[in-house]
């Protein structure tokens, strides 16, 4: 009941928000919230720490940008193309990475993402250090001009809500239950006859695809795809958002993304702008040491204890 009320309030807030807050900042938040929720699918529910999700985010950003700007694809199709490309990358990376577990999984995904990063630096379609600039937002279904920030915001919100719903559905589906069983006790899941590797791979590909959707959407919002999107700092940031909001909770990563995006925005204009990585690092350390359940996890524990 409280959860449903919470979601309803959050939805109302998101619909009303662009009248009070700068829409581009809100869109940035939505993109990263989607990115973090997609990431949480594999960390929170699959128990696999991927340190390479920036490759899917950034790769999709480039593909979507290229498809819209150079090939002239409509915006919707460009975004889908980006997500699909991330899915293919996820399939290739996942097939390699799920061969190892735990920290090795983290190291392998990080190394593969670094490989992708180097390929992006030298590939002709990424624009190297300059990035892919001036990607047109285009018109939604050929009618609504997305150059208008309000229209763009509600388009972004619609995609975010659809993806969020898909993630929630996945987590609560039989597939999601099996995934959690594997996370909690892999040998038992194996002995129950589940094809553990296939489940992990499917979850990884879904996670990569949705991370790609977030990256592609980000390209359209900011009309830019750059190396920053694919750098390992980005992989670290999405881990931090998820950790801060609550690993393994549905809404936690979105909350964490909100906090980090707001914080970055706050610090960027102040005297602390050069200290952003240090601040993020300190939050990381504090979260790991004494705030492992995250905002939503703590909230849930508090509600369970009090009511």
């Amino acid at each position, binding site marked *: 009941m409280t959860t449903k009320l919470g979601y309803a309030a959050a939805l109302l807030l998101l619909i009303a928000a662009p009248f009070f807050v700068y829409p581009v900042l809100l869109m940035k938040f939505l993109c990263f919230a989607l990115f973090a929720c997609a990431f949480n699918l594999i960390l929170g529910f699959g128990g696999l*720490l991927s340190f390479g999700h920036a490759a899917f985010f950034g790769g999709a950003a480039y593909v979507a940008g290229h498809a819209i700007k150079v090939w002239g694809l409509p915006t919707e199709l460009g975004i889908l193309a980006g997500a699909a490309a991330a899915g293919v990358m996820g399939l290739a990376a996942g097939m*390699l*990475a799920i*061969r*190892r*577990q*735990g*920290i*090795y999984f*983290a*190291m*392998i995904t*990080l*190394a*593969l993402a*670094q*490989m992708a990063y*180097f*390929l992006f630096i*030298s590939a002709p379609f990424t624009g190297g250090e300059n990035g892919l600039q001036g990607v047109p937002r285009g018109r939604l279904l050929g009618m609504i001009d997305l150059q208008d920030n309000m229209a763009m915001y509600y388009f972004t919100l619609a995609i975010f809500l659809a993806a969020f719903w898909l993630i929630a559905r996945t987590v609560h589906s039989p597939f999601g239950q099996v995934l959690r069983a594997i996370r909690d006790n892999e040998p038992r899941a194996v002995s129950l006859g589940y094809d553990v590797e296939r489940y992990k791979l499917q979850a990884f590909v879904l996670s990569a695809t949705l991370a790609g959707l977030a990256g592609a959407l980000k390209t359209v919002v900011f009309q830019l795809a750059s190396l920053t999107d694919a750098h*390992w700092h980005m992989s*670290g940031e999405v*881990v931090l958002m998820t*950790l801060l909001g609550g690993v393994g909770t549905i809404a936690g990563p979105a909350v964490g993304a909100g906090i980090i995006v707001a914080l970055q925005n706050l610090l960027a204009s102040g005297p602390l702008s*050069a*200290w*952003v*990585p*240090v601040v*993020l*690092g*300190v*939050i*990381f*350390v504090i*979260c*790991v*040491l004494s705030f*492992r359940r995250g905002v939503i996890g703590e909230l849930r524990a508090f509600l369970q204890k009090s009511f």
Partner: protein
Amino acid sequence: MLTDLLGFPPQVLFGQLLLGLINGAFYAVLSLGLAVIFGLLNIVNFAHGALYMLGAFSAWGLATFLGLNYWAALIVAPVLVGGFGMLIERFLLRRLAGVDHLYGLLLTFGLALVIEGVFIKLFGASGQPYPTPKALTGGINLGFMFLPWYRGWVVVASLIACGVTWYIFERTKIGAYLRAGTENPKLLQAFGVNVPLLTTLAYGYGVGLAAFAGVLAAPITQVSPLMGSNLIIVVFAVVVIGGMGSIMGAVVTGLGMGLIEGLTKVYWPEASATVIFFVMAIVLVLRPAGLFGRTA
């Protein structure tokens, strides 16, 4: 045909192979440190690259502010940074005992961000020059290539560090405790050995190795805040390729990957940044546990 080896003059080929060997020596020392730490703490030390950078900066700082020369720095910097590492272990990492080992990775990742961020703020992203020690300037012409003394020394010193580590682990009492602690810390504790202290020492030693590599690197690469962060990702790939099971495995894999990288620089320069990751992918397909790894 010594003048033209597979389409390249030998100076180019051997020059790149030497550079590869040097990189390989760094990979070996760094992955060895990771393996030592992993053995007792079961975590991958993401801050390893930052601590390597800290080693190089310590050497630079010791020279600039205290006038200490290279040879003193080679001893003092690893001790300082190793001590710093022991503080990290004692006051931060130890508090994660009993929780998922992934949190150790995340904690050290956060630390790496903090350390690198502070140094970028203090020194900017560009590098500080560090002179080659006088005794090792110049070099020798071997006929087929020119060997700068310092570069030869880096390879030798790295191998010495690996050899000392091997000796400590395989031939001393404390090494026997360390190996026992890797196998079964609870039982070792029951025998009256102070395992928490051992863990702190192991972390300090692993970090000290990273700092040692940092001092070695200082005269070759410029001393810059980001010198460790890209290197450490390659070292992770090296660790995945070799597995963290054995000292020899770390050394052989490190040097081998360096040489492969050097060869790639000669024959296909565009691929040299990614070749180690490719090798990692191939190893994962053919031998998922790593070349020297034990199957889990």
